């Protein structure tokens, strides 16, 4: 019933998110305009577009973090595993446990490396010391950070470099075993080597997680993503396989953007 409207390509069997007719306002300002598309499970979806196009707002809507801003109003629906995330059936806390998020600037807590990683599991009720240690090791290993920090687990997270802090934040998200990882320009504050490490990490974990990444860098989008969505002024202009978008975009505006004519 719901999926009968014409959806932007591509459509798949395993969509984890189904966005339909999503509008979002900040006060009177329409920041997202009638978005309708699906996000596939176990794929990397990149969202590109010039500053202010709504890509950050969109990704923050997927785990309802956008509601931390004042005066936000939404219309339409986003189905996550076929449940409307704005409905009563799914609590925002549950949603955010299953949908992790990594932010633009690394934001570890002013605690030890270990305490950062087990922060989520602890609050969700795991108290067993060995179990927590196990979670920390697995999460840090998955975030390609274990070898670098295993001898300083109880040192302050702020002693790590920027790139390490960002991988720590990824480990912190992985510790609650999410299905989806949202990444809001995760490398914009990092140097090229740290950026490379994060991209490599994304490549390693994408078989187990659905990843939605907002990026300013078109090279990054083309390197790491399976699908790419191009946003412009709150609208979804084009959404397709990444090779297609970067080789032969269907829309003139997409082509103008990726060839650097504006943005």
């Amino acid at each position: 019933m719901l999926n009968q409207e014409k959806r932007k390509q591509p459509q798949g069997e395993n969509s984890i998110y189904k966005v339909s007719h999503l509008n979002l306002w900040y006060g009177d300002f329409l920041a997202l305009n009638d978005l309708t598309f699906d996000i596939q499970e176990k794929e990397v979806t990149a969202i590109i577009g010039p500053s202010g196009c709504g890509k950050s707002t969109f990704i923050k809507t997927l785990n309802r973090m956008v509601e931390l801003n004042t005066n936000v109003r939404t219309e339409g629906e986003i189905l996550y595993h076929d449940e409307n995330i704005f409905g009563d059936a799914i609590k925002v806390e549950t949603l955010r446990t299953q949908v992790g998020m990594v932010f633009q600037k690394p934001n570890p807590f002013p605690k030890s490396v270990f305490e950062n990683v087990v922060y989520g599991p602890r609050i969700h009720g795991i108290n067993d010391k060995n179990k927590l240690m196990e979670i920390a090791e697995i999460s840090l290993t998955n975030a390609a950070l274990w070898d670098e920090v295993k001898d300083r687990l109880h040192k302050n997270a702020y002693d790590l470099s920027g790139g390490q802090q960002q991988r720590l934040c990824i480990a912190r998200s992985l510790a609650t075993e999410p299905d989806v990882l949202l990444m809001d320009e995760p490398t914009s504050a990092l140097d090229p080597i740290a950026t490379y490490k994060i991209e490599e990490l994304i490549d390693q974990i994408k078989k187990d997680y659905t990843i939605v990444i907002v990026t300013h860098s078109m090279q990054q989008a083309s390197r790491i993503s399976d699908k790419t969505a191009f946003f412009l002024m709150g609208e979804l202009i084009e959404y397709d396989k990444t090779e297609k978008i970067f080789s032969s975009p269907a829309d003139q505006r997409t082509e103008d953007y990726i060839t650097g004519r504006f943005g």
Partner: protein
Amino acid sequence: MPLFFIVAALISILTTLGIVTTLVVDASKFFAVVPLGEIFSTNLAPLRAENPTFGFLPLLTGTLITSMIAMVVAVPIGLTAAIYLSEYASAKKKKWLKPIMELLAGVPTIVYGFFAYSFVTPLLMNLIPSLNAKNALSPGIVMGIMIIPMVSSLSEDAMESVPHVMREGSLALGTTRLETTLFVVIPSAISGIVASFILAISRAIGETMIVVIASGSSKNLTFDVTQSMQTMTAYIVEFTSGDAGSGTVGYYSLYAVGLLLFLFTLAMNLFAQYIARKYREEY
């Protein structure tokens, strides 16, 4: 012209020096007569014609007990109000709640004194029949109410200075606002929050009119909050507004008490500044 400005600026230094000199000079006249050991005794009878005694312990306990009652009221209410204003309240709610807090902070202490004596004490008498008309409980509670806005606004400032990205990091892991507040915001703001408590104690110790009016001037050492107790500030007021003539030991004793009071509050204020500066978190 700059010379005039320098002189003006130095007046504030002169004020501090004036306070210290005044207190030290006249207190030393007191200590020249009264041995230091005596002030730690429990016997306070400054107006006795023969052999007046100056044990300040009743004043110290009176001050401490009323201040502690005030803290028991002000800390939980002030801190939870700060949590609400900083972490839960919408911008709209904040817009009318904060001015009310400010209004409460602007009420003169004499008005609180009247309120304690003519409203809170009779109210408490219904609950505790043995309550004395002058007692430590009622002014303690009212002092606590007076201090709520101070604890609340300073703690709120401390919590609001915790970067927003910290909260986002926690909330994005599926924690509730309460958990984010308890495990991220408060630990990060703890130095500012503790500093606000210390400043509040200092304020309670130095508060005068509420205790003068509602706690009376009993100089007996007691821990019974239903009884009258005299605080250090109330002692100073009692002595200056009346009976002890200038030049007597009794007159100089109020400078000794003043010096103690000054040192207590100064130490607290410096300690609060030290904590706020030393343990400021880096993000």
